């Protein structure tokens, strides 16, 4: 990220995703994103952070880190978790997740949704052995 404007570290607990969503929503609103787009941004970030908390952390002692960069017409958000020591990020596993997704299932919609709602979506391992998810949202006008 060329210019990281905002850094936000929270404990790996869904409780803290509530104020994070308020932060992101308010920021996107002040940046001039439309209501509909703000809802999309909040949902995508919620799904990504939920995965970081529920699948990418050993406990609530772990930290979830967000880096939010604001450039002309682009909002870029990087979510980092510390991982659980499991190698999950393989092409096979991702294809499997995609193939198994069904509207009838109670879970398994998070990655699908966040890919759908973002303009770019990138997932990779980070130095800590956790997962980095980097997404961007472009402004229409």
């Amino acid at each position, binding site marked *: 990220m060329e210019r990281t404007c905002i850094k936000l570290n929270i404990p790996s607990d*869904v*409780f803290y*995703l*509530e104020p994070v*969503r308020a932060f992101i929503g308010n920021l996107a609103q002040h940046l001039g994103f439309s209501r*509909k787009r703000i*809802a*999309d941004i*909040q*949902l995508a970030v*919620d*799904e990504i952070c*939920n995965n970081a*908390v*529920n699948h990418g952390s050993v406990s609530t002692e772990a930290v979830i880190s967000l880096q939010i960069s604001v450039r002309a017409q682009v909002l870029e958000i990087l979510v980092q978790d510390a991982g659980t020591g499991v190698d999950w990020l393989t092409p096979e596993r991702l294809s499997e997740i995609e193939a198994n997704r*069904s*509207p*009838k*299932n*109670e*879970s398994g*919609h*998070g990655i*699908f*949704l966040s890919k*759908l*709602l973002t303009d770019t979506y990138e997932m990779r391992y980070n130095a800590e052995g956790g997962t980095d998810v980097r997404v961007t949202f472009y402004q229409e006008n």
Partner: protein
Amino acid sequence: MAKTDLMMLREDSGIKIIEIKTDLSSYAASDLRKMLEMLLEQKVDKVIVNLHQVHHINSTAVGALVGVAKRLRQNGGDLKICELADNLTRTFNLIGASTVIEIYESENSAITAF
């Protein structure tokens, strides 16, 4: 961490109506799930979840609603939802959950649909 007034449980025409008072992200979804499990244990078969005060829902909360709807249907009951804001409808549509769960514009139309 105080969780007050997250949801209100009412009854109308023999149907349990849950009115959600908060955004439905994972934090509140766990309470919603507990409430729904409780109703399942009490052999309730008709449930409506009114979402008119909800501004945000995520896939965890949608999953909880879909899961309970499926279990209720196995016993001849159902869970229907109503009064969704546009972005909530969008989330249900994107997931595809609007084909699995019945969505109504108003609470009344959800009641009469039972």
